[in-house]
């Protein structure tokens, strides 16, 4: 299992835990697994299409990841709000 790390309001939705082990072979499977463990997370990271929201960044062991990025046991997957702003 990989370790999923969340921040900000996602931490409260994910049972109050900053990081936890989740099963999955890809980033998408991992994030769906997180939703299965904590249904309140649904809709906050992945949208209805299963796409990572535009201003959410996912890093796998420090490298930027996408939905299809492979994940291995022990990998560290960080979910972070992107640096945005200026327009709103």
């Amino acid at each position: 299992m990989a370790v999923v790390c969340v921040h900000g309001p996602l931490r409260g939705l994910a049972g109050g835990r900053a990081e936890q082990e989740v099963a999955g072979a890809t980033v998408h499977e991992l994030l769906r697994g997180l939703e299965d463990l904590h249904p309140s997370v649904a809709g906050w990271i992945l949208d209805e299409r299963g796409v990572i929201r535009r201003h959410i960044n996912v890093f796998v062991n420090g490298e930027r990841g996408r939905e299809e990025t492979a994940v291995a046991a022990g990998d560290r997957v960080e979910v972070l709000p992107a640096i945005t702003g200026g327009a709103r």
Partner: protein
Amino acid sequence: MTELLLGTKKGLFALEGEPGSEFEVTSRAFAGEPVDFAMRDPASGRAIATVTSPFYGPKIWYTDDPAGEWTQAEGVALPEGGEHALERIWVIVAGEDGSLYAGGDPGVLFESRDGGATWELNRALWQHRLDEHWQPGGGGLCLHSIVPWPGEPDRLAIAVSAAGVWLTEDHGATWRRGNRGIVPRYLPEETKEEDVALCVHRMERAKRDPQRMFIQFHGGVYRSDDAGQSWNQIGSGLPSDFGFPLALDPSDPDSAYVIPLTGDFDRVTPDGCVRVYETRDAGTTWTPRGEGLPAAQAYLTVLRRAFDRAGEGSSLQLYFGATSGDVFGSGDAGCSWFTAATRLPPVFSVTASP
């Protein structure tokens, strides 16, 4: 005491006050987040807000106390695995049987039968959206107007920018278009009716004569006398027939208030002068109402949901907010105006509760 719930670019502001004097900010919620719309459910008294986090997407929240804890509503999403994602919730409106309706982008309608805690997508309208080419307006494919029929919960009209007016008489099981007579100046005349991208900006229904409806269009103000099946232009006499918001006096089916902007090329109050225009003869004539409003060097933009009313008749209260962060009110049906608030974030929506 009147309560205003303001959806702004930087959070929800609750204000309280009496017409004629500045209102007090009594609470703020969702600090820093864009709040597209907020309202009080008249059935439950709950406050309900729609928030579109740039990070986490659109959500609906509800609370009994806007200064307290808010709870996220469930079911506010499109079917999983499709080609579309929910972009934004533009409006929430109370129905006639205790239900609530929410409209949003991309052209979606939700209904709640438990005071806003859970929501269900109207699949019949969504199927029209999937089967037909609906063109978004500049603000997205927004379902922004939801108009119940007083006393008849199965009858509903909605308007979408830019997919026009849609009518149902079986509580949303089936829908048909209601666009006859609307003339979009931004399209060739020979455009097929079913292909017409009709950019309605706001639609309202007269409470005492539900057949009577009004539209502020993207260039044109219209009236319908047959429940939205056909429309007639009534905008002559206005300095511009371009604008976004619209409000009615519930006591008078011949009444309507609009806030003209210069045009789609320059979306500010004409000549730096803020004026609300009122008709009491169903659009035959319009009277400018500006006493107490800025008359010079005021280039305001008032968005489609940033105009609301409370009460009716001679004590009709009217309130509108601008993207400048100013909020103006009237306690005498628009005869005179006062400044209710200034220096707020850009105002997206205004709802008023007595």
